[in-house]
C-alpha cells in the first residue's frame, strides 16, 4: 500500500517548510511508518495541518496525498482547521462527565459565544471536548494550552478565560 505505488501528489504551490520540520522529515524519511510522526511534528508547529504543507509532506515522503488525508481524518488528534491562539480542551472522560463536564462546555459556549470545535471571531479561543486527560482525581477538568485546571465550578471559567486573553 501507499509508498510503493507510483502516484505522487504535486503541490499546488511550493512552500518552504521550516528548518525544524525539514530536518525531521530528512531524519525519518527512510524509517517505515514515519507518516504519523511527521504529521505530529507539523501540527506541533502550525497547530493544525495546513493544506499546502500536506502537499509538501506528500511530495517529500513520496506518499499519495489521499493517504495523508486518510490518516489525518481517521485520528481525532489531527486538525484541518486553525485553532484559536488559546485552545481550551474540556475533559469528557467518565469521571469528568459524572461531575459536570458538560456544564463546563455549556458555560464556555455562553461566555465565548461559540460552539464546540469553533474559534472566536478574534481568533483568541477555540473549544474542544477531549477524551480523558488522566487527571480523574481532579474532575471536572479542562486544559488551556495544556495547562490543567481541576476541581472546577462554572463560576471559575470567566476568570480563567480572562487570565489567558491576550496572553
Amino acid at each position, binding site marked *: *500500500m*501507499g509508498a510503493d505505488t507510483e502516484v505522487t501528489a504535486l503541490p499546488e504551490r511550493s512552500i518552504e517548510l521550516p528548518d525544524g520540520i525539514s530536518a525531521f522529515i530528512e531524519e525519518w524519511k527512510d524509517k*517505515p*511508518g*514515519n*507518516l*504519523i*510522526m511527521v*504529521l*505530529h511534528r507539523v501540527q506541533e508547529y502550525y497547530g493544525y495541518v495546513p493544506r499546502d504543507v500536506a502537499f509538501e509532506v506528500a511530495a517529500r515522503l513520496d506518499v499519495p496525498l489521499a*493517504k495523508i488525508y*486518510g*490518516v489525518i481524518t*481517521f*485520528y*481525532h*488528534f*489531527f486538525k484541518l482547521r486553525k485553532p484559536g491562539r488559546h485552545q481550551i480542551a474540556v475533559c*469528557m*472522560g*467518565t*469521571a469528568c*462527565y*459524572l*461531575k459536570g463536564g458538560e456544564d463546563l462546555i455549556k458555560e464556555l459556549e455562553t461566555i465565548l459565544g461559540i460552539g464546540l470545535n469553533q474559534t472566536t471571531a478574534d481568533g483568541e479561543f477555540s473549544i474542544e471536548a*477531549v*477524551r*480523558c*486527560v*488522566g*487527571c*480523574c*482525581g*481532579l*474532575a471536572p477538568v479542562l486544559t488551556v494550552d*495544556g*495547562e*490543567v*485546571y*481541576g476541581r472546577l465550578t462554572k463560576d471559575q471559567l470567566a476568570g480563567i478565560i480572562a487570565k489567558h486573553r491576550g496572553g
Partner: protein
Amino acid sequence: MAYSQYVLVCAGTACESCRSAEIVRRLQAGVRARGLEGSVQVVRTGCFGFCAQGPVVKVLPGDHFYAQVKPEDAEEIVEEHLAKGRPVQRLLYRAPGRAAGAAAELPFYQKQFRIVLRNCGVIDPENIREYIAREGYAGLERALFEMTPDDVIEELRKSGLRGRGGAGYPTWKKWVFSKEAPANPKYIICNADEGDPGAYMDRSTLEGDPHSILEAMAIAGRTVGAQQGYIYIRAEYPLAIRRLEIAIRQAREAGLLGRDILGSGFDFDVELRLGAGAFVCGEETALIASIEGRRGMPVPRPPYPAVRGLWGKPTVINNVETLANIPVILLKGGDWFGSIGTPTSKGTKVFALTGKVNNSGLIEVPMGTTLREIIFDIGGGIKGGRRFKAAQTGGPSGGVIPEAYLDTPIDYESLAELGSIMGSGGLIVMDEDDCIVDVNKFYLEFTVDESCGKCAPCRIGGRTMYNLLTKITEGRGSVADIEQLHAVAHAMQKASLCGLGQTAPNPVLSSLRHFGEEYRIHIKDRRCPSGRCKALVTYSILPDKCIGCTLCARRCPVNCISGERRKAHVIDATRCIKCGECYEACKFGAVLRA
C-alpha cells in the same frame, strides 16, 4: 555525603497541575537559604496515588504526609520541619475521624500492595541511578547472564501473570508463540495507548517509573529474540512522553539499551511512536496499523500478532502494567508472584478509582480484594454522604456492579460472571445522583464515535443502540425498545470484527441485568429517578415550604420564577429550561424535582 532527610514531592500530571513544580523550587530555595543542602534532599517523584489530596509532599524518615500543599507553604515546611524537626501540624493529612499518622498507616494505603507502582512516589523518575538503586535492571541482568530464555518463560508461567490490558491472556503463552515463530526480525511493542475514559494507570506508571518498562521490554526482547521495541503512547500524555525520552537516553548512555547490553552481546533498542487519539488503536492489530503509519483499522485474527504482527513479523504486544510486573517476577521468582491473588488471577491490579468517591486516586491491591474494601476502606466511601449506587469497571467495554455484589472478591473470572470485565483498571463509582441509562448513553456515544467504521455490526449496531437509549432518556421509549437493545447487542457481540464492537454492548447488557427497573421507570413512568435526564424532570415550588426569599428567582437564568418577596414563588413550567439552579440554590427544600 549521606542525606538525613528526604522530601518527596509528587510530580505526576495531577499534582503538577496544582503547581507542584513551584513547590519543589521553593522547597529547594528554602533548603539552600538555610544551608541544609548537605543533609536534605528534595526529590520530584512519580505519582503517590492519592490524587484527591494533591499536591502531596512526604518527608522521610518520619513518613510525614502533607496534603493539598500550596507553594506558599514550602517556606514553613523547611523552617519548621526540616530545620527544627517540628512537623507542620496544619498541613498533615488526617483521615476523617483519625489523627495524623505515618503515610503507610493511612487508610488509603493500608490495604494496598504495590508491585507495579513499587517505585512511583519513591524515586525520581528522571534519574536512572535511583531506579538502579532500587534493584532496577537487576532482572534484566539475570535474564542475560543467569537464565536461558526458557527459564524466563518458565518463571512467567509459574507466576501466572495475565495481560493487564483487559483480556487477561497468559503473558508467557504470547512470548512462547513469538519465540517459536520462525520469521525474523521480531518486535516487542508496549501498548501505552490508554484510551479508556476515566483510567490513567499506565500514564502514572510511565511517569513515575519509566525504566521498569524499558527493562521489561529488553527482557522480552532477550527471551523471544527481538532487537527492536516500540512504545506506542498517546500523544495526549506529554509528561509521560518526556520522561520516557529521558529514560531511553539515560539507559542508552548506561549501556542498558543499544548494542551489546552489559557486554552480553545482546542488542536491543526502544523507540517511541505516538498515537493520535483513536481508542480503537488499543486493539492489537489496529495498533500495529497505526505504528506502520496507516489508519488504525483492525484486521481479523488469527493470525495473531505474536506470529504475524508488525510489518508481518512476530510481535509481542504487552500492556504497560503487564510489563511493569516482569522485572519483579524475575527477581523474586514466579512462585512468589503466584502466591499473591486468587487461584485464577495472580498478583495485583492497579485501579484508577474515580467518580463519587472521597479518596479518588491510583491504587494497587492484590487480586481478590473486594469492591467494598476498595471503595469504602481505601476510597473512604461516597462523597457527601450520598448513597452508593454502582461501580463501573472496564469502561466502555465493561459493566456496572450493584451494591449486592460489593463483597465479591475481584478477579478476571468473578467480574466476567457479574457481566462486567476487569478491563484496564478504570473503576468509576456512581451514587444515587447518577442515572444508569444516561451513563450508558455516554459510553455508547463514546464507542459510536470511536468505531472505525470498517464492519457493519459495530458501525450500525452501535448507532442503533445509541438512538434507542436517546429515545428512552427523552421519554419516548417503549417496552419493545428493551427487546431491540438485547437483539442488537447480541448481534454486535457475535459479528463485530474486533474487541471494540464485540464489547461495546456490555455496559447496556450489564445495566439491563442489574438495573432493569430503572430502564422501566424511564419508559413506563416517564420519570428519571436521579433527575439527570432533563426531558423527564419537572421543577415546581412547594408553596408551604417557600418563604419567598427570592434566591431562586435571582438565580434562574431565564427568569421564569416569579413571586412577591416573602410570598410563595411559582415556576413557569413552559419557560423552564430545567437547569436545576433553583433546586441547588433553595435552602429550605422548597423546590421539588419530580
